[in-house]
């Protein structure tokens, strides 16, 4: 029974990782931007949520209604300005620019908001849970986050496959120049994709900030790494692969934690390395790695 609980907790954790990873996967899949500031953006979203709650007194659990749209707008603007300017030079430049952005965000947070840890206070919601049998305990918050992740991925899947803008995003991901020749402003479409990616990473940052403590360095130290691992394990360019990757990573970490708390992260890295060696295209991708 203890192992069943371990797997259940891993799946619940995997939802959060998938939420983190889908924005990273989208930015890379559509515009070849490897966003090294991804984790820091998530942390910034959590800080902003604390600020929003302090100022507007909305319930913390509903802060996403304000923070996610803010981040979508920021995403569009950053893509159209900073990232596009980098893309016009080279893909390597975008890597340096996002790395720089990561450093700026992290140090900005340290400088102005101190290195102290925070969390988004949602009161008793954070610890409420229900049991199945005597061994399995499921926290409502974890379950909600997993459901949010699934709903976001379903929504994204629908958006990409069945709407006009989603079609343009796929077209631009295939061939930006041919899209331009068909009358598509690929810069605008890149902006839309970045808006979605920033929106989802904000959501993930809030979920993470409600579940655990965070500080200015949490973004690069843990969140970015987990997002990368989920993407690599699942396989690039597949939303469901991202979910599967997140869940596998979560399960591996929980199994590791059964042995000792220190093994939690290690087990995840070992799975990540094993996938890289044995199946570098990811578990769901049909494409052979280049």
């Amino acid at each position, binding site marked *: 029974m203890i192992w069943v609980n371990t797997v259940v907790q891993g799946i619940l954790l995997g939802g959060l990782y998938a939420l983190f990873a889908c924005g990273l996967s989208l930015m890379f899949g559509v515009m070849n931007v490897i966003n090294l500031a991804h984790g820091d953006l998530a942390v910034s979203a959590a800080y902003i949520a604390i600020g929003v709650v302090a100022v507007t007194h909305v319930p913390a659990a509903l802060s996403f209604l304000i923070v996610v749209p803010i981040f979508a707008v920021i995403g569009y603007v950053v893509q159209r300005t900073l990232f596009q300017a980098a893309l016009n030079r080279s893909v390597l430049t975008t890597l340096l620019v996002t790395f720089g952005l990561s450093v700026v965000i992290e140090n900005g947070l340290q400088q102005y908001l101190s290195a102290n840890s925070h969390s988004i206070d949602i009161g008793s919601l954070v610890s409420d849970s229900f049991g199945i049998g005597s061994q399995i305990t499921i926290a409502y918050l974890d379950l909600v986050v997993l459901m949010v992740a699934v709903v976001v991925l379903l929504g994204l899947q629908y958006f990409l496959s069945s709407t*006009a803008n989603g*079609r*343009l995003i*796929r*077209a631009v*991901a*295939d*061939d930006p*120049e*041919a*899209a*331009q*020749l*068909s*009358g*598509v*402003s*690929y810069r605008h479409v890149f902006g839309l994709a970045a808006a979605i990616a920033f929106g989802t990473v904000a959501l993930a940052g809030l979920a993470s900030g409600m579940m655990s403590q965070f500080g200015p360095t949490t973004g690069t130290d843990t969140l970015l790494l987990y997002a990368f691992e989920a993407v690599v394990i699942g396989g690039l360019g597949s939303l469901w692969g991202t979910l599967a990757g997140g869940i596998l990573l979560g399960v591996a970490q929980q199994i590791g934690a059964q042995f000792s708390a220190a093994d939690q992260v290690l087990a995840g890295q070992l799975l990540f390395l094993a996938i890289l060696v044995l199946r570098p295209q990811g578990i769901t991708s049909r494409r052979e790695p280049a």
Partner: protein
Amino acid sequence: MSELTGGPPLLQVRRLSVHHGQLQALRGVSLSLPAGNVQAMIGANGAGKSTLLRTIAGLHRPTAGSILLDGSDLSRMRPERRVAAGIALVPEGRRLFPSLTLQENLLVGRTSARPGPWNLDRVYDLFGWMRDRRSQHAAQLSGGEQQAVAIGRALLSNPRVLLLDELSLGLAPVVVRRIYDLLPQLIASGLTILLVEQDVSQAMRVASWVHCLLEGRITLAGAPADLTPAQIEGAYFGIGTGNGNGNGAPDGTTAAASGRPGSEGTPGAIA
């Protein structure tokens, strides 16, 4: 512009020069394309034919010269804005979106569409086989089918000028002929066409005016009926007489003097 034929040409290219880094791909190319015309660019590999079409479509920035559509200058416009203005390029190698279905590929072409006769149904009527296979992925289509979809995608923007780059590339001659046989229908719908073709006989068959490009310059231009094989050979390979002095066609005059194919009295002009 005052022209011999009266009324400005629909598309005008004036003394266009384009560099790829150190290499000069086009050296002062001029041409003018009256509405309803089919004109062809022929020339060897690397002569600058595709560069010319891509520059007109906005993918290359010219170092000198200008491109006018109906008298207004497009030179500073982005490619997608030029589509909205009425220029559509069917690029070399088709360039369909492989992960999109046939119909989705066509629909992308509608993004900056002008009002006009072309819609999904009309494209499906033009290419009878497409309707039944509209949900197939573009990557599953044969080369000829992909070429048809690429043309359909361009038509859905309702262009005024259609630029066709090497339609015949990698296709069987019978397929190429079938595609070129559609051009009269496209012209009847109000289109004006500038095409690039390595297959000289195909170009001579469909075009009312042919330009030969050699090392970035137009070395010969004229109505197909008035050009002798020897002239074309000379212009194509840069041998013999009548070329090498490096002058592009003077602004606008070549096409302005052309009239229709088969009209008498048009000398086989060596530009």
